[in-house]
């Protein structure tokens, strides 16, 4: 072969290899970006039922005495210790969006704990009983309270099998701009809907958990981490007998 041809081959080889290597280096980044952008819905597009957001809580991983998820939720949504409000309400009147529940096995005496929040049911009793339709389920499965039309009758609080909802018992001043809350209305965990809509792709509690006990994701996406995880081992719903098809599933109850 002539030297020129060899050089040509060399140049071709080098350029192709470099191109491939460069593509290989950039591609994951591009893919990540496109994945990230796929999670952020454009601001002017309505939500659809293409996704169904949910959580997988592994109680086995939930560390005894830890309440990081609670503190993160408080900080993100400005309630409890994350806000200077609710000073006049007593301990039973203060709102609580998420709580850690300690379970003691009556037979063995052993204890474990898990976080509990609004279960974002597919058939929410709170939505059924709300007289004005303020308690509603969004197309993507998140159950919310429209505080513009909530009259504060508290029937949803009565109907919720998980005691997920709280009523605001006094005037508030220190709300987070993304999370409106007000006296005389009912509220509960919003699955960080403002973060989801913004494209953060995660809830505050799941982000904060150091033990990976909470996993957020799209239950309808077979490739999502949560869907894959749920196929690995059995999961249950709290009060599965009520047939509410909750969006929050548990392991280790």
């Amino acid at each position: 072969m002539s030297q020129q041809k060899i050089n040509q081959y060399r140049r071709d080889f080098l350029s192709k290899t470099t191109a491939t290597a460069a593509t290989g280096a950039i591609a994951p980044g591009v893919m990540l970006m496109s994945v990230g952008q796929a999670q952020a819905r454009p601001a002017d597009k309505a939500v659809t039922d293409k996704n169904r957001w949910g959580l997988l809580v592994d109680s086995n991983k939930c560390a005894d005495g830890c309440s990081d998820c609670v503190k993160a939720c408080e900080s993100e949504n400005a309630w409890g210790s994350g806000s200077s409000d609710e000073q006049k309400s007593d301990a039973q009147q203060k709102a609580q969006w998420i709580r850690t529940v300690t379970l003691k096995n009556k037979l063995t005496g052993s204890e474990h704990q898990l976080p509990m929040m609004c279960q974002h049911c597919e058939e929410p009793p709170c939505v059924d009983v709300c007289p004005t339709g303020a308690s509603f389920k969004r197309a993507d499965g998140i159950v919310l309270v429209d505080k513009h039309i909530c009259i504060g009758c508290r029937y949803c609080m009565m109907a919720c099998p998980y005691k997920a909802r709280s009523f605001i018992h006094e005037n508030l001043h220190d709300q987070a701009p993304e999370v409106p809350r007000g006296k005389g209305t009912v509220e509960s965990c919003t699955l960080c809907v403002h973060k989801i809509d913004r494209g953060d792709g995660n809830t505050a509690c799941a982000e904060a958990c150091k033990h990976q006990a909470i996993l957020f994701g799209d239950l309808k996406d077979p490739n999502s981490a949560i869907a894959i995880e749920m196929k690995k081992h059995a999961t249950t719903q709290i009060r599965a007998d009520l047939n509410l098809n909750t969006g929050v599933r548990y392991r280790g109850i």
Partner: protein
Amino acid sequence: MKPVVHYSAIEGRSIAYWGLLGTFGLFLLLGLGAVWVMEHNGHYVTGMNNHVIWGLPHVFAVFMIIAASGILNVASIASVFGKKMYKPLSRLSALMAIAFLAGGLMVLMLDLGRPDRLVIAATYLNPKSVFAWNILLYPGFFGAVAVYIWFMMEKRMNQYSHQIGLFAFVWRLLLTTGTGSIFGFVVARNGYDAAVLAPMFIIMSFGFGLAIYILSLMATCRWTGRELGDNVIRQLKNLLGVFIAAMFYFVFVLHLTSLYGTENHGFENFILAEGGLFTQIFWIGWVVIGLVLPIGIVYHPSMSKSRTWIGIASAMVIVGGLASMYVIIIGGQVFPMTIFPGYEVSSSFGDGAIASYTPSIWELGLGIGGITLALAMTTFAIKILPFIPDSLSDELMDPHHAAKTAEADKSETNAV
């Protein structure tokens, strides 16, 4: 010639009358003041919290709403079941039904977190919500009973009294069932998930309503100098006895059937034995004062003939009724939900623990405000329109029975 019953508006010019109305007005104002405190500051001033979300106002409100439909019973017995003796009693019965429903609704609506949004509640209705059905059932009741009163008062419409009476009767059954369903549909809570609650509420409405009616009728006739025959009282008293017996049966059945299921043992034990205040209110308030003592009075050979004792029996039924509402509504909330069967549960949000509830003066003020609204409406209305018959003497009400009794008395005297 058959004696005709005349009706007239009461005079209502005495100092006692205006004093009574004034007292009602005062308590109503205090009630509205309590509402202002709750609405302006928020519900932190009350004893209600995130675990006991419905408190004393709801005890009063549900009591009044149930009683309202039961008060209408007296009119229904005349128009629907054809008992002539009850006919003159009908107008007052229909009036008080409206008044007590209004009072109950006032309490409910003013306890809302955002009562300024009532217009939304009237315009956006969720078809699956019992509350939304009630928003249609309650005005329907007002309308039906108002028409009923009109038909009773206007001579040419008297012939249709039966039809409208039947309509109102069916409507109030729907309404009371709806009120019972508010609790019966709440599958999440041990104290409420019982189908027998709906018919029990209906029977309770009969009892509470009649007790309130008897007291009001006796007071009205006494204070306006109208005759009220012994026989009339006797028949009403006997009916009350039947209703109390029926309520007793339902309470018995409710707890007996609940006790059968092991899953209910926790709640039943709480109410019947180890619930502290709730157990006391159940046994002493609901059972003894509300059922056992009044039925004893009603069937006692000499006490049952005394109007004072009958009045006391009626008052006891009312007290027992409020106690029953307290046990059902508040007891049902105070007992923790079984979210994790088989585990002992604890958390920072009261899971697994008996919740605490201490009623505040504001809630009591609102509840009493509702009662006084009902009484004030009645007191005022009987002065404006002819609700009360001029006389409810035995001869007028039930000539045959009066004649028979007179015959029996005469033959007794002759025999002696």
